């Protein structure tokens, strides 16, 4: 008798839960996710800003839904018209690029697309100090006629077409009204894309709701009544969202890759990053041995890539010896096995360089993409040829960036997204590149880069390969494994596909199955 009341309260609570669970089945995530109605896409990080001038490439989804790019990159890597119906270079030096715009296009706020709009937009993003602005800085933009824009670059830029796709964000054009109030662009959208952000149904940092843009020029391209981009940081919770039917598409994670396949989810993944080590001190400033190319080559020969790939990147990695991914920009199949695992040859090269007993060097790593594990594995393997690596593991990503790019460490772990070689140069190997903190200046490399920047077609492909081959032979880096960014999808949707030329999933192609 004495226990009846508290137990009754407890039972009532339990009963309430059961009733609630049973009575509102129609509002479950399963029902909400019916194909054609709402597409829920899960990503693992929220964008710092929705402003196309300031957004980061990792956050491209948040902008591509609302901002139609000038040029659309399809999942197979081919380029197709977006706001521009055609485009071409003028002259032979890749300095003048002309875009012809689609007529009668309106933004979601009702304003019209003109060449002037595009010029103002490109002016804005090139000065907004965003991640990709450096690729446009110094260029001039001219409205040649009401629907023609001419971009004139001070230096050759062979990658305007790719740069102006949705993958690089800055190709997504902002409306005149949006440009007039740039303070609003961080949390609102003003584009001509298939959808527009519904701020009332959005909680910044958690979920972003997009509804169809009534002015979209191609209504057939609007496949959903609503698209929700949901941010979930825990990899297992991401998978659970798909398994429970709350979401249909997500970014994947190496830790859940096997489980996703076992659960029957569609898994799409194409090579995106090469992971390894940057041997930055090629002048021997703080680690004298690295000044000798034979030492750098020895480290490459002492690296057992297939073992590391199998152990650390099961199902999501391929061994690589070049600073690109298999099939990617500048990839040379003939050089795929340039550095087979050969510790004896490595010892021989070290001896020839004057280090028969090896040496000691420092290396800094972060934990992104398992770089710390990769660094430890390499340290173990290189110890076999007498090279002792003192690994500094920066748990704080900012600290890692500061250490790696300041020239304090002769070597640092690297996970580098594959980029067109022209874009890679200023970041990876030219004298002012961040990944070249000791400012190694190589005349041959600069000459090849200059030639490639002006070239086109097969000549350019050949020169790009030549650059990547040269970097491999000079052993500026120790590339180990290429990895992809996996995406998961339920069977209720189609179009979840990527390719080596378009490793980032395009949401434009995701549509209801059947």
């Amino acid at each position, binding site marked *: 008798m004495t226990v009846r009341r*508290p137990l009754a309260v407890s039972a009532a*609570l339990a009963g309430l839960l059961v009733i609630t669970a049973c009575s509102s089945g129609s509002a479950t995530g399963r029902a909400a996710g019916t194909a054609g109605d709402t597409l829920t896409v899960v990503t693992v990080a929220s964008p710092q800003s929705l402003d196309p001038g300031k957004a980061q490439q990792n956050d491209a989804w948040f902008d591509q839904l609302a901002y139609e790019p000038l040029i659309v990159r399809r999942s197979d890597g081919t380029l197709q018209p977006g706001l521009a119906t055609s485009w071409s270079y003028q002259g032979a030096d890749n300095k003048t690029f002309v875009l012809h715009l689609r007529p009668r296009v309106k933004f979601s706020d009702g304003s019209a697309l003109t060449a002037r709009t595009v010029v103002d937009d490109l002016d804005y993003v090139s000065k907004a100090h965003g991640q990709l602005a450096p690729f446009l800085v110094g260029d001039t933009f001219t409205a040649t006629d009401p629907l023609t824009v001419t971009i004139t670059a001070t230096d050759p830029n062979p990658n305007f077409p790719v740069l102006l796709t949705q993958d690089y964000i800055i190709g997504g054009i902002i409306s005149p009204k949006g440009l007039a109030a740039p303070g609003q662009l961080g*949390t609102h959208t003003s584009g001509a894309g298939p959808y527009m952000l519904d701020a009332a149904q959005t909680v910044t940092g958690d979920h972003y709701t997009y509804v169809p843009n009534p002015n979209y020029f191609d209504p057939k391209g609007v496949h959903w009544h609503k698209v929700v981009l949901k941010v*979930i940081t825990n990899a297992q919770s991401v998978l659970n969202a798909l398994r429970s039917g*709350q979401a249909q598409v997500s970014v994947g994670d190496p830790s859940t890759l096997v489980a996703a396949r076992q659960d029957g989810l569609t898994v799409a993944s194409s090579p995106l990053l090469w992971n390894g080590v940057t041997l930055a001190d090629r002048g021997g400033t703080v680690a004298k041995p690295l000044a000798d190319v034979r030492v750098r080559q020895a480290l490459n020969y002492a690296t057992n890539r297939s073992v590391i790939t199998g152990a650390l990147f099961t199902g999501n990695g391929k061994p690589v010896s070049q600073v690109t991914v298999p099939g990617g920009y500048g990839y040379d199949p003939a050089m795929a096995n340039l550095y087979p695992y050969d510790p004896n040859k490595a010892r021989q090269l070290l001896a020839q360089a004057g280090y028969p007993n090896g040496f000691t060097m420092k290396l800094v790593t972060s934990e992104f993409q398992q770089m710390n594990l990769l660094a430890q594995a390499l340290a173990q393997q290189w110890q076999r040829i007498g090279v002792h690596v003192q690994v500094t593991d920066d748990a704080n990503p*900012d600290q890692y960036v500061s250490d790696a790019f300041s020239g304090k460490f002769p070597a640092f772990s690297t996970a580098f997204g594959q980029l067109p070689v022209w*874009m890679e140069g200023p970041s990876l190997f030219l004298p002012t590149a961040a*990944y070249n903190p000791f400012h190694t200046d190589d005349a041959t490399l600069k000459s090849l880069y200059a030639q490639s920047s002006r070239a086109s077609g097969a000549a350019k492909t050949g020169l790009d390969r030549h650059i990547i081959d040269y970097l491999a032979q000079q052993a500026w880096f120790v590339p180990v494994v290429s990895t992809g960014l996996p995406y998961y999808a339920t069977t209720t949707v189609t179009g979840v596909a990527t390719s080596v030329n378009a490793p980032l999933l395009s949401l434009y192609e995701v549509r209801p199955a059947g």
Partner: protein
Amino acid sequence: MVRETVRWLVSSLVLLFVVTALTFVLVSLAPGDAARSVLSGQSTGYTNQQYQQMRHLLGIDQPLPVQYWHWLDGLLHGSLGTDLFNGQPVTDALAGRIGPSLSIVLGTVLVAGLVGVGLGIVSARRAGIAGRIVDVITLGGFAVPNFWLALVLVELLAVKVAAFPAGGYVPPAGDPAGWIRSIVLPVITLSAGAVALIAKQTRDCMADVLSREFVTMLRARGLGTASIVYRHALRNAAIPVVTVLGLLLINLLGGTVLIEAVFAVPGLGQEAVTASGTHNLPVIEGIAFYFTIAVVVANLLVDLSYRRLNPKARAS
């Protein structure tokens, strides 16, 4: 009463000042800054010139005291500042996150209070098998890691049975049932340990009170067991339990981060982690401000409960 209210207000303001100033200092001591956070997202790296330029753009190149003064000045004018990255007012950015956090925290405190007190009374009253069972259950609540429990609950009740959503949060306005369903699993997860804590506290206090002389006298007067337990003993035993409930509430405010991550609940904890990771100082300050207010209110509620439960406290 007026004097006490003034004293409470002054101490609350001092606490608010100390916490927000300390937050400013602690954030500045952490390696990196917001400019590096913006730039480090670039796989292409950045130069020192770009870094200095970004610091200036974000307004974090000013001395820390100046930044704090600007923040305080804004606060006095009703503004918590703006998000460094997207320009959104911090009050707007956090507005949608207070509801989810409060729902989970108050839900957990409610469940822990009702179930924990119930089980504690059973355990104190019944020394036999029922009491032992309750003891085992409460010990289990302590022992089970809530992260693991969360994953099991999702697997069973969201993936296999689909009774509750695996994650997310539904605001109560317009869909109260959806709201309850969205917080059930997080609340159960957080309640496991909390129920055990409250049950243990209740049991010890009740056992102590029930062994006192005045209870024997009440029995001698012929009062029924229910009346003794609920009208007299529970009232006496409740004071320490209320204290623990208050501490639990304060602890949960900052302790739900992991569970928010597992259940993808857009709470203040998650935002605090994100903002700390990117050194988004105005947002961190805003969250510290709200947490401090919540702590002050929780303490006030505990004090008021004391007065209600204990006539001596009321008289003093």
